[in-house]
């Protein structure tokens, strides 16, 4: 049993104070990072609620419910931001990355406190995998929303489609790491593989575009 609210306060206070001294992009990142941590706590509440209502075990909740609640909760601040701010270029992506990083950091902090931090090897793998996974799902979401915004095709179908895709990536990761053995390692490698695919696609796309305009 850990007191997640107390951990949140402990991590958030220095960041809130840091906000007083920050301006521009730095301030925006810290705000979204804090928001990501708050969202993580709220989605834990929601997952716990669903666990009790549907009578599921902790593992079933982690595999089936958490990906849904966490991705919905992460989408809400982005949608709110899009609603109140006229974003330019890849601004949504920066906001999404901030929320994803805050979310992953808080989740990692709680996980370390509840299950120990003796093994540096495990902590490194877990840190890299979960951190990257939350970033990847947020990047998928942000890319989808950016595209819908750029081409002025903001439709409910498109938004929900991007959200569901992010949920599936998350659910697959949770499923793979829920079982001991080779699947756990595949699960840990999965977000990193996705990042590499994204990089390669982006590199190929930018190269092709540069060739076209040269």
């Amino acid at each position, binding site marked *: 049993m850990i007191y997640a609210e107390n951990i949140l306060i402990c991590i958030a206070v220095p960041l809130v104070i840091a906000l007083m001294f920050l301006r521009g992009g730095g301030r925006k990142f810290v705000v979204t990072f804090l928001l990501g941590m708050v969202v993580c706590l709220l989605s834990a509440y929601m997952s716990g609620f669903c666990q009790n209502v*549907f009578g*599921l075990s902790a593992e*079933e909740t982690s595999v*089936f*419910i958490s*990906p*849904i609640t966490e991705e919905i909760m992460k989408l809400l601040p982005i949608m709110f931001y899009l609603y109140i701010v006229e974003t330019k270029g890849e601004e949504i992506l920066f906001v999404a990355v901030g929320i994803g990083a805050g979310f992953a950091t808080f989740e990692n902090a709680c996980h370390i406190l509840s299950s120990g931090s003796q093994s540096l090897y495990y902590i490194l793998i877990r840190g890299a995998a979960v951190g990257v996974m939350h970033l990847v799902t947020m990047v998928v979401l942000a890319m*989808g929303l950016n*595209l819908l915004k750029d*081409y002025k*095709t903001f*439709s409910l*179908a*498109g938004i*929900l*489609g*991007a*959200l*569901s*895709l992010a*949920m*599936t*990536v998350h*659910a*697959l990761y949770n*499923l*793979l790491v*829920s*079982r001991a053995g080779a*699947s756990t390692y595949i699960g840990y490698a999965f977000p990193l593989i996705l990042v590499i695919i994204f990089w390669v*696609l982006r590199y*190929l*796309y930018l190269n*092709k*575009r540069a060739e*076209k305009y040269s």
Partner: protein
Amino acid sequence: MSFETVFGNIISILSLIVTVSIIILSVRKLTEKKNKVLSVFFTFAMVSYFMSEVYYFAYNFLIPDTRMPFAANEIAEASMILLLCAVLETVLGKERKINIPALIFSTVFIGVNIALWVMWADEWIKNILFGLPYIYYLYLLLKGVIKTKAASSKEIIFAAACSSLVFVLEAIAFATYDTVGPIVEISCYPFMYILWILIVVKTIYTLRKEDKNNGEAMYLSFTLHIWTMLLMFMSADIFYNVANIMYILVMPLMYLAFKKELSKDDIR
């Protein structure tokens, strides 16, 4: 692991190979200066399907022969349907006028489907929630088919009557499961497969036509897609695996229709 699960896994692998090939081809289309929105939505829809198959495969491998309470592969399928809806919205363009007959038919038709799914699986929330995207998908398809005259009125009425008959028979089969139910259920399959073959023939014919393209091939291939999905949901045992194979055959037709749509000169 049961024989059916092993066979299901083999089909999943086949399906993954086909889907990956389509994803690679559609990613290549992304770099062309054509209708980029269409390419992105289609590619992401295929990625969703790929994720659905990967999840299904991983689940069967890690937790075999266990029913999923709230499965992510169904979320991925819903994602694919929604993204395909976004593709259709792009093809339909700015037209936002509601087609009332199409809306009524799609709501009633998928509503009956949802009712049957609930009766079979006894899962209310999941089936209602994941059934909603199908209503919108069918609505957009009907709207497009009527608008582009991809199928004549007679063909639409025949397809609607045939598919409705299948669901009536399925409902009778469910109600009389202890007596004549299994026989009635088997009698549904000829109707399902005949309709599937007719849509395949019509789609291939439209794909081969070289005259002006208004998206007919896309609407027909996507109609074939939704019918194959419904057919899959209604099939049991060996028929389910047959439907899965039919689904694998539909994917390349969808890609060809998407490619034909992209080859149009106008960039929306």
